[in-house]
């Protein structure tokens, strides 16, 4: 039993995130940890063909992935919705140079949020991404994660697109505060 699985709901999407990235030729997984990304982070860290890089703040990942692309390789950024706020100015680099950008964002302040301090950024996350020219998709059901992420990866890497998949709190499950 791994700590990042909620009981009952379909958790297959956690593996799907990693499998889709791997199949898309991603060689760099850069991240600020979130419980919802724990499986993908663990698998990326264990994969000898993937460089897994922990960041101090999310916008570092934008620069890193631009550099990796200059060097001919693909990567993806894993972060929580709060981190989207940290990325805003740096996303100008993606827009100006049309760097491929692929992000997977776990949502907070989105549904059944116990900590209301998460709500302002959570409610602004999708609009903020779009304001900076990032295309967004949203998955609230496990079956949607793989096809949506596959499509986002295609548009990022084949068309120099800026793409983010948001993983809703209904998908991830309620955070337990009573433990």
């Amino acid at each position, binding site marked *: 039993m791994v700590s990042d699985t909620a009981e009952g709901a379909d958790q297959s999407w956690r593996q799907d995130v990693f499998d889709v990235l791997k199949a898309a030729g991603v*060689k*760099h997984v850069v991240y600020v940890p979130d419980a919802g990304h724990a499986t993908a982070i663990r698998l990326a860290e264990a994969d000898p063909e993937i*460089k897994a*890089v*922990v*960041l*101090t*703040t999310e*916008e*570092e*990942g*934008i*620069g*890193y*992935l*631009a*550099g*990796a*692309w*200059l*060097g*001919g*390789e693909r*990567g993806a950024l894993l972060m929580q919705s709060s981190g989207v706020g940290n990325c805003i*100015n*740096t996303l*100008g*680099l993606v827009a*100006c*140079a*049309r*760097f*491929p950008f692929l992000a997977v964002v776990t949502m907070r302040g989105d549904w059944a949020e116990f900590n209301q301090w998460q709500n302002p950024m959570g409610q602004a996350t999708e609009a903020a991404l779009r304001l900076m020219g990032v295309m967004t998709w949203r998955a609230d059901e496990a079956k949607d994660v793989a096809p949506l992420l596959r499509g986002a990866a295609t548009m990022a*890497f*084949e*068309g*120099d697109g800026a793409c983010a998949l948001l993983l809703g709190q209904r998908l991830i499950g309620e955070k337990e505060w009573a433990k």
Partner: protein
Amino acid sequence: MIGGTLDRRAVVADLLQDRGELLVVTGLGSPSYDVMAAGDHDLNYYLWAAMGSAMTVGLGLAMAQPHRPVLVVTGDGEALMGFGALATIALRKPRNLSIVILDNGHFGETGMQPSHAGQGIELSRVAEACGFPVVDLVTERQVVEPLRRRIQARESLNLAVVKIQAENLPRALPPRDGVYVKNRFRLALGHKPA
């Protein structure tokens, strides 16, 4: 130490001599002009915005191109905005990555306001504290040639803080079309545009 006496253009020109396989990333503002003044090159990537990103672009590039030396040329203000990148890079320690911080102790582009580096934050000590295996504080021109050789050697992650004069030199403007510079860079490495 508030800045220094070295001529930034001369130091950068020295570092880029006989550059061979070198890949270069520049921080916005004067470091971009310094590298441009030394001669435009397909394997230069100039940042015009995204302040704080020069070191992380260099890290991603170094990780994707481990067989080529990668040099980040940036300023103290730009490096300060990407402070956390020093920690991120120190964990990875790519042997082919060199970071040169041109430190005049000021925000030169915006009117020469004193920066944190000019008011007591010594970036070389920050890099040491983060665990950079090789850190230099460069105050004399003679040390630049050994630094150039180290950048080419790909033997260890290294960072040099070069104490330069606080002066605004005539701008040498690199191309501002980010898509062009990106694709030019990738083509020179054998990668096609999308």
